[in-house]
């Protein structure tokens, strides 16, 4: 399969690879996917004042599109408020990276990872978890 230039760029130069302290109450961690399905994403956000995401990191086990989707997600998350982050739709990722139909699930996983990280942060800080849309089962 031929990958788009943007996928290749994110794959070769992944942005924001790394690990934040998952025990910090300012950090939300989302771990989605499963090894037996061939992709696992871990996405973390650090939230500062006014609910602004000050840092985002990821690590991904998966194909090039999965790695690129999560790399792009961390780029987009930085500087956004939690509410803005919640509005990131998987189709935005599909469009930006020109993912083919068979790779759409990679973008869905990235969206799930964002929401799951936000929920982790919310629960840690005494807020209710947001009910996730299960659009892809």
């Amino acid at each position: 399969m031929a990958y788009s230039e943007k996928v290749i760029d994110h794959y070769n130069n992944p942005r924001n690879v790394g690990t934040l302290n998952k025990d910090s109450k300012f950090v939300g961690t989302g771990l989605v996917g499963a090894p037996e399905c061939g992709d696992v994403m871990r996405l973390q956000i650090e939230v500062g004042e006014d609910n602004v995401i000050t840092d985002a990191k990821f690590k991904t086990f998966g194909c090039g599109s999965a790695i690129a989707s999560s790399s792009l997600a961390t780029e987009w998350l930085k500087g956004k408020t939690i509410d803005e982050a919640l509005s990131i739709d998987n189709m935005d990722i599909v469009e930006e990276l020109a993912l083919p139909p068979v790779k759409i699930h990679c973008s869905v996983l990235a969206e799930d990872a964002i929401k799951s990280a936000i929920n982790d942060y919310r629960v840690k800080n005494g807020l209710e978890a947001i009910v996730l849309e299960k659009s892809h089962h």
Partner: protein
Amino acid sequence: MKQPIYLDNNATTPLDPRVLEAMLPYFTEKFGNAASRNHAFGWVAEEGVDYAREQVAKLIGCTEKEIIFTSGATEADNLGIKGVFEMYKEKGNHIITAVTEHKAVLDTCKHLEKNGARVTYLGVKEDGLIDLAELEAAMTPETILVSIMYGNNEIGVIQPVKEIAAIAHKHGALFMTDATQAVGKIPVDVNTDGIDLMAFSAHKMYGPKGVGVLYVRRKNPRVKVTAQMDGGGHERGMRSGTLNVPGIVGLGKACELCRLEMESESVRLAALRDKLETTLNKMEESYVNGNTQHRLPHVANISFKYVEGEGLMMAMSDLAVSSGSACTSASLEPSYVLKSLGLSDDLAHSSIRYGLGRFTTEAEIDQAIEVTQKAVNHLRELSPLWEMFKEGIDLSKIEWAEH
């Protein structure tokens, strides 16, 4: 060095220039139809086909009349299995095969199940070989055919063909083998091995695509298959259709070259493969898949735990290899061959197949080792699973969100 380095010779091989040279006249001046009996154009084409038939027969130890030319191994598998099923209907309807067979065999069997066949799919042991006791137990008076591949395309293991043939024959069944990966690579002799039908193709042994063979035994016993294509009655009535003369001539030449060079070539390839495999297997959490004693000399299948195969292949864009992970659908199915060895899905997703060939050099293997090591290390840096493994977290205890 040519980039990328081609290490996918189980998928297909490049055409040997000597094969091309043999084929070329048959596209132009020797263009005749081998079935044209009444002029020189036909005779010249027929001569070319006859000579190729001899070359093929010599490689596998049979007579010329036992060679049926087809469009490839898939057609040969179809013709052999469906042809036997139809021809021996009176005797029984039971076929035995194995779960690690190529789709050309498995899907043909599935097709026949819809037409009244009963098929037993033998499992394999964790080294990829079938259990002979299990085969013996599966034999019934209705068993007409045992079809087990010679060498596996994904992991290269060689099945105990002689023993399988003996069991089949003891119970009055025919033995067929898909030998696509083995013929031309290791000695295959239909008489020593007790083979009644055998499928293989030219493009896996430096010949052209679009041409293959079904070997059909003519003596002890005389085997017959019902034709699957109606027409001019070519190939002794078993396979109609104008012969692909240039392809057949190329196949013949390819067989001859393999016969002459196999002995030294298999030693050379095994040494290169062992170098590749031993070095890569020294990496932490890497696993060699399949039996390492009984296998083809040119194949290595290795799982690099905690990295995903397709992602890994992308990091190794300088290498043309193949992965047991198919991340192309929502279901992300890993290789059924690797799964049947009992590999967990995540290890199957982490596998890479290296297929060496006649034109593989030692410098290319050295480069392949370097590229692989670099790519695996790079992807492990990106892998949350690797990080968790390093922290001593038991991944099997985590509740993964299935998707």
